[in-house]
């Protein structure tokens, strides 16, 4: 089968999977409801318990799973393509660290008592500040400067987060911070969806606009430039990718906390299925990331005995063995 047809089939299968899990996620939860009745009530505008559960709890949580998972998968694919490094993941930009610091600062200052939106808005502010610092640091520098700037920003944000944890007066707040940092979609509302949506949409469009440049970059920066792609500068490929990933990932981490391994593992699993062409990997990575996080979120809800398992913990627990398996397969291929 031609790679283009193979990619289209993969996209259709992933989309079907996302849609199937989307419906299942709305139907299934801790509280048993008659989904058809709840849906009918919701569409008729009747505020029954079932309609409220679906509309205010399950729908935003499900939408966020798709948005956050999709963004992490897409960002991973774009960054791995741009840096030509299969170990790149959205965390290397340091923007996730900035979002975490922003959110943790909200915990520390007690602003979260003011509004439910304070926490994600704090995270978003942290992510945007980190993105601005990153763009300022990188300027017209190349990929090495980007990696170093991301590492420096990430370390600094982690150090400041640790400082806040160190200084926080209440052990309860400390526990809340640790819990938030593990990543979760529990109790998220449409406020969270609206807070992360603009950054995700703008960031995703910026990243998707770099697809052809990513293909050209497989042949190296000089060839990509000679093929007519402007790599650096305000409208260059690097700006679009870094700004896009920073906006999208920062917005997601602001509402969900840090969710690891999705951005790393999803592009790895899908790359051989699209003929290793970076531009063909983008849409499948978005859909695959959304699918994986929807699945993980449903598992979290199913195994909720005692304290609910945090989503970020589950993705790391599942993602790391997948990565081990890839390493072993790679070693076998090499030898």
């Amino acid at each position, binding site marked *: 089968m031609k790679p283009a047809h193979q990619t289209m089939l993969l996209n259709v299968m992933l989309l079907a999977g996302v849609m199937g899990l989307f419906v299942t996620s709305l139907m299934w939860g801790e509280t048993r409801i008659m989904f058809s009745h709840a849906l009918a009530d919701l569409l008729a505008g009747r505020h029954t318990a079932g309609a409220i559960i679906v509309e205010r709890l399950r729908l935003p949580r499900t939408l966020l799973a798709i948005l956050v998972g999709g963004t992490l998968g897409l960002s991973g694919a774009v960054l791995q393509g741009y840096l030509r490094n299969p170990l790149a993941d959205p965390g290397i930009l340091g923007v996730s660290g900035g979002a975490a610091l922003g959110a943790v600062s909200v915990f520390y200052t007690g602003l979260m008592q003011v509004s439910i939106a304070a926490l994600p808005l704090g995270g978003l502010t942290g992510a945007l500040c980190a993105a601005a610092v990153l763009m300022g640091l990188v300027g017209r520098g190349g990929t090495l400067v980007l990696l170093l700037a991301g590492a420096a920003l990430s370390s600094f944000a982690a150090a400041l987060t640790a400082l806040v944890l160190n200084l926080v007066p209440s052990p309860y707040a400390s526990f809340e911070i640790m819990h938030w940092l593990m990543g979760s979609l529990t109790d998220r509302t449409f406020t969270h969806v609206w807070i992360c949506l603009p950054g995700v949409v703008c960031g995703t469009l910026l990243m998707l606009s770099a697809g*052809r440049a990513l293909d050209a970059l497989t*042949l*190296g920066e*000089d*060839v990509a430039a000679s*093929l*007519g792609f402007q790599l650096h500068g305000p409208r260059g490929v690097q700006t679009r990718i870094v700004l896009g990933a920073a906006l999208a990932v920062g917005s997601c981490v602001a509402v969900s906390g840090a969710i690891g391994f999705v951005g790393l593992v999803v592009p790895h699993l899908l790359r051989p299925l699209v003929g*290793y*062409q970076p*531009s063909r990997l983008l849409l499948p990575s978005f859909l695959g990331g959304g699918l994986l996080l929807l699945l993980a979120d449903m598992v979290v809800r199913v195994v909720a005995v005692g304290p609910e398992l945090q989503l970020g913990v589950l993705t790391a627990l599942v993602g790391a063995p997948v990565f081990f398996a890839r390493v072993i397969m790679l070693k076998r291929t090499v030898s």
Partner: protein
Amino acid sequence: MILLQARDVSLRRGDRAVVSAASLTLAQGRVIGLIGPNGAGKSTFMRLLAGLEAPDHGDVRILDRSMGQISSALRARQLAFIPQDGGTPPPMPVRALVALGRLPHGQAGDHAVRHPAVGHALDVTGLQDLCARPASHLSGGERARMNLARALATDTPVILADEPIAALDPAHALSMMHLFRQQAGQGKGIVVVLHDLVLATRFCDELVLMDDGAVIRHGPALQVLDDDIMRVVYGVTVRRVEDAVLPWSLCR
């Protein structure tokens, strides 16, 4: 017809002049060999010719328009560049990688893969049988031909190749030089950086000799490579066998 012209092009990096007032004129149907010892500034001069860097002084013109005044997309349709070391390519099929040469024409995906220029480039370089193979599985010689095929797929009047035969055995090196000669015969202009003076003498219409950032001599091969210049620039004595110049022994 003049395809590419550099006039008194200079570039400094810090305090060091990497290229000093270098000039070159490439006409249609010609192969120019850019030669000189390591560190002479050949690769930087090639980057200036390719428009990948802007010179501090001087001007590079392509088809009589200043490189700085045309868009990067238009430049990409007029000039193809094969860099010195492309590194290991990704495991994409050879045909898909060659088809990336159609990107300057706004063609990508299946549309590019099916374009006649891609098929022609694969035919000319003898890669048609390998077109479904992952590019990462190619040998050094096949990879060099794939890089040329990608440049040919763009179908530009000018091709710049930086040391395309540096890692090739004699048979593959000869085959590549024949391909360059053949393309020049069809009206393209080619500048190729070479260290093999025998092949440079045999396949190039003109040699441009660089040393310490400057073009110190240019013209037909046997005029450029005289005994004195070989001693001064390369630090070797030479032997002449018929019309070939063979580096023979170190003189310092």
